[in-house]
């Protein structure tokens, strides 16, 4: 088993077709069904949805002091909107789950393996 993070990316300011309340409810239902499926198969480890990037705060060490600043770390237009942490047999299994999620939520998903000490690059 390998642990993967499926991160859901949202593009700032991207105008999306507004969903009708019925569509919204349908979409939430689909996500609920999918998460229940992931939990019962043992794939689901953790998941969460994040508030908008404006709610973020960054701390860093500058000249030996902690500096706290408002706003997201990356000045990119794309931000992490939420994530799943899953267990999967291999990349194909992880991609199959990610494909289901992206179909339901309509945003691209990055699939990335967690590192452990055994698989650091050699060269």
């Amino acid at each position, binding site marked *: 088993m390998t642990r993967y993070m499926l991160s859901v990316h949202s593009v700032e300011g991207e105008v999306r077709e507004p969903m009708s309340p019925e569509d919204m409810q349908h979409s939430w239902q689909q996500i609920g069904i999918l998460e229940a499926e992931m939990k019962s198969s043992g794939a689901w480890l953790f998941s969460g949805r994040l508030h908008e990037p404006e709610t973020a705060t960054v701390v860093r060490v500058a000249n030996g002091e902690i500096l706290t600043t408002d706003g997201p770390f990356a000045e990119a237009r794309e931000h992490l909107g939420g994530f799943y942490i899953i267990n999967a*047999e291999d990349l194909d299994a992880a991609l199959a789950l990610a494909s289901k999620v992206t179909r339901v939520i309509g945003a691209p998903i990055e*699939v990335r393996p967690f590192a452990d000490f*055994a698989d650091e*690059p050699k060269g």
Partner: protein
Amino acid sequence: MAGIDEAAMGRIFRDNSGRSVATLIRVFGDIDVAEDAVQEAYAVALSKWARDGPPPNPGGWITTTARKRAIDRLRRESRERELLGRMAVSSLGNDDHDIPEETGPVQDDRLRLIFTCCHPALSTEAQVALTLRLLGGLSTEEVARSFLLAEPTMAQRLVRAKHKIKAARIPYRVPADHELPDRLRAVLSVVYLIYNAGLNSPTERGLCAEAIRLGRLLSTLMPDEPEVAGLLALLVLTEARRASRIRADGSLVVLGEQDRSRWDRTAIEEGQRIVRWCLRRNQPGPYQLQAAINAVHADAATVEDTDWSQIVALYDQLLAVAPTPVVALNRAVAIGEAHGPEAALALVHELDLENYYPFHATRADLLRRLGRESEAAAAYARAAALAPTDAERDFLRRGGRGHRP
């Protein structure tokens, strides 16, 4: 017993290393371990066989020796508990037995390997490099040279790709039926890319031979897939005409002006035989249709003898399964031969291929045939400005005759 020279050794390596590497990857679950062990086994073989001559089954000997070397090395590095634990159960405890050759599971290893190398999670460049390195047995330096890259750059690309396979756990298996059509398309496109890299480079003809070898391997491993057969037929038929396609000075000869007596009849017969097999299967796909178009060209003793209406019919089918502007352009060329330049020009003008030089070359040719000389000259100039190689530019500056092959 007669010894063996380095050239013969090189051939044995090319013919067998992919199979040995594929088997060892399955046994040890690690690409680097497999590659290193196979390299080591060949180094041993080089000195041993130079003295004693090769064993009756060189490939089997290499696989067995490589496996022993790998186990020795893993023990030496005292990683055996971790890595030997991952070995397939069947391979434990029989170190001294030969691995059976040419049986189902052994062939499946190479098929697994090509699907891993061409996994869509890897970039196309990485897919091509891994396929040539692991299945083709090319050295990193040879792969680098094929794509005009410095060896460290290519080495880095291979290291990254292998690291991704391991870290992201790209599986080592033939995809399930429902995934197979998509995944097979990626594999076929890698083989086709390798062939075209060889076709378009005056120095790397070896890539054409390598692509055909991979095509043959795939059609042995997947004998029921019509598109696999179609790709092989397309490569064999293109290869049959390669010698007549380029002049001694490197410039291109268009199909209409090629010396057809230089076409390789044996290869053409093989290609046409495969095309007929595909027709009987009646599951047309893009490679089969392109092969069929080539087969019709190969049938004609002169360009005038070509069955253009048959070619137009095949392009109609190709456009239905692969509706791209480039296919539409080639179809227009065939229409130009079957129904005259006027009809073709009307079709060409509907296409949005402003930056594709064959678009301008085709327009130029059609305009010239319609006697619209100054428009033709302008189109040739535009084509020449966009042409990727000196040979193509020269051809177009001469106001190329005939159409593109």
